[in-house]
């Protein structure tokens, strides 16, 4: 496999913003969450919709978002792999810009995940493999499906349910000082374990919050970005990767490790030309508390079975060797249903030095997304220096 980079360090995120508010927003539809985030991100870049010629999104169709905003696109990407779609959009946009197929690409996310305003029905097609062979068993919600492999992961490593609670406590510590976070009360391992189960072994706080909100990104060539008033705030795409495995949790080849995490992250590091030791900051998409454990191990930041101790010893917290999920993550900050956009937004803020809870000295951030439960993965390496 060739991992020659199509980026060459030549693509920048020049605009990044979330919706003005996140949380409970019953007055805004899904489509207009996209629009608000897009307009905020363009304002952040010092650009307007008239500058945009490429649109990528997931949820609504890309042409719905582009028309709604008044954009005349010459490039569209509607790749839909769930919550990590936006990682793939950034990767695809970089290739398109490098190839000359687009100049300024807008990537949007919006979801009325909590209030369900302007949202379609739930659940898989009953004639699909998921419908016939998983949904009939009540594996029809994220908390009753995405969570199923976790006990095997823990069992294989001699870990207990307590490891999941360690993740919650570490995430919460980041959220306590973040006024935009949904869950801000400090908690303990004991308190998390004592909560009634939602889907045992998962208690409520081991499951993400459910919110409304959105976010958007504006990408262009680093060369052109250098001419913008916001040039010193540009965040550069250093490397990326994507992969997919099975659309059904039950068909993962190994329930204790996700192949797509391993492949996407390896390609992201290879295309960036860096090693784990070069990474200052990690965003690890945490829809449920088992995911940062899988990711730390599958991405290779720690060895097999070491993820629980790595977190419990404070390495992912303030002052730790690898600050992780510094917005509080999906478990504490926000989770609209497709959280990947928010993971990218926090990485951009940290690299710009503009985060609510800023970690000093971050130059390289690794963003790991997951989508459609254990189906797809997207990885980005972002930096605040043009290589």
């Amino acid at each position, binding site marked *: 496999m060739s991992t020659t980079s199509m980026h060459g360090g030549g693509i920048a995120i020049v605009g990044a913003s979330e919706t003005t508010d996140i949380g409970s927003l019953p007055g805004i539809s899904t489509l207009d969450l996209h629009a608000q985030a897009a307009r905020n991100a363009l304002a952040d870049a010092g650009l307007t919709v008239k500058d945009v010629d490429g649109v990528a999104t997931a949820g609504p169709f890309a042409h719905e978002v582009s028309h709604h905003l008044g954009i005349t696109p010459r490039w569209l990407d509607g790749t839909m792999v769930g919550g990590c779609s936006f990682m793939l959009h950034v990767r695809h946009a970089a290739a398109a810009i490098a190839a000359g197929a687009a100049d300024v690409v807008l990537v949007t996310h919006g979801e009325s995940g909590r209030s369900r305003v302007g949202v379609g029905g739930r659940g898989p097609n*009953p004639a699909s493999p998921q*419908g*016939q062979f998983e949904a009939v068993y009540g594996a029809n919600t994220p*908390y009753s499906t995405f969570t199923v492999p976790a006990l095997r992961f823990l069992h294989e490593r001699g870990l207990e349910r307590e490891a999941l609670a360690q993740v919650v406590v570490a995430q919460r510590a980041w959220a306590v000082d973040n006024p935009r976070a949904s869950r801000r009360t400090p908690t303990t391992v004991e308190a998390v374990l004592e909560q009634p189960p939602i889907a045992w072994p998962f208690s409520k706080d081991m499951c993400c919050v459910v919110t409304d909100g959105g976010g958007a990104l504006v990408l262009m060539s680093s060369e052109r970005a250098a001419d913008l008033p916001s040039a010193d705030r540009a965040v550069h795409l250093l490397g990326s990767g994507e992969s997919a495995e099975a659309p059904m949790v039950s068909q993962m080849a190994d329930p204790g490790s996700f192949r797509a995490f391993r492949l996407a992250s390896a390609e992201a590091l290879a295309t960036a030309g860096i090693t784990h030791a070069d990474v200052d900051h990690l965003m690890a998409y945490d829809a449920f508390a088992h995911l940062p454990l899988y990711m730390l191990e599958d991405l290779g930041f720690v060895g097999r079975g070491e993820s629980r101790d790595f977190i419990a010893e404070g390495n992912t917290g303030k002052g730790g060797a690898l600050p992780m999920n510094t917005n509080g993550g999906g478990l504490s900050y926000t989770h609209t249903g497709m959280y990947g956009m928010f993971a990218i937004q926090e990485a951009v803020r940290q690299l710009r030095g503009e985060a609510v809870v800023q970690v000093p000295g971050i130059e390289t951030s690794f963003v790991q997304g997951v989508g459609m439960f254990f189906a797809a993965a997207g990885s980005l390496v972002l930096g605040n220096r043009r290589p």
Partner: protein
Amino acid sequence: MPGPTPVPTPETAPYWEGAAAGELRIQQCTSCTEYYFYPRPFCPRCGSDAVEWRVTSGRATLISYVINHRTFPPSDAPLVIALVQLAEGPHMMTNVVGVEPLPENLPLDLPLRVTFEQRGEYAIPMFTPAEAAR
């Protein structure tokens, strides 16, 4: 309350017909001998379309699970949603039934055997601890 029923496709109909007859049938590739699930008209391992339906032993082991206390649609009974490995090799999602849904009753690697729950015209394959009396 009965759970959801499947909508078979031409490729999956023999599976559901087997279940209605009290058999758990999956496919085997006659080129590479791989048993596989879910149904497809070709082998996902080697690509051969020389595949045949087989009746499985009905034996499986418990790989992982959750005990869902917030079922959708709502129900008072916690539901064991389980990933099992058939004796023939493939993994499948299922429910573990015929046992109180408590972690102490559900150690990983627990031997299981197939059973069927009738829902309208469909029989849904489920599993129960192998040593449980029929």
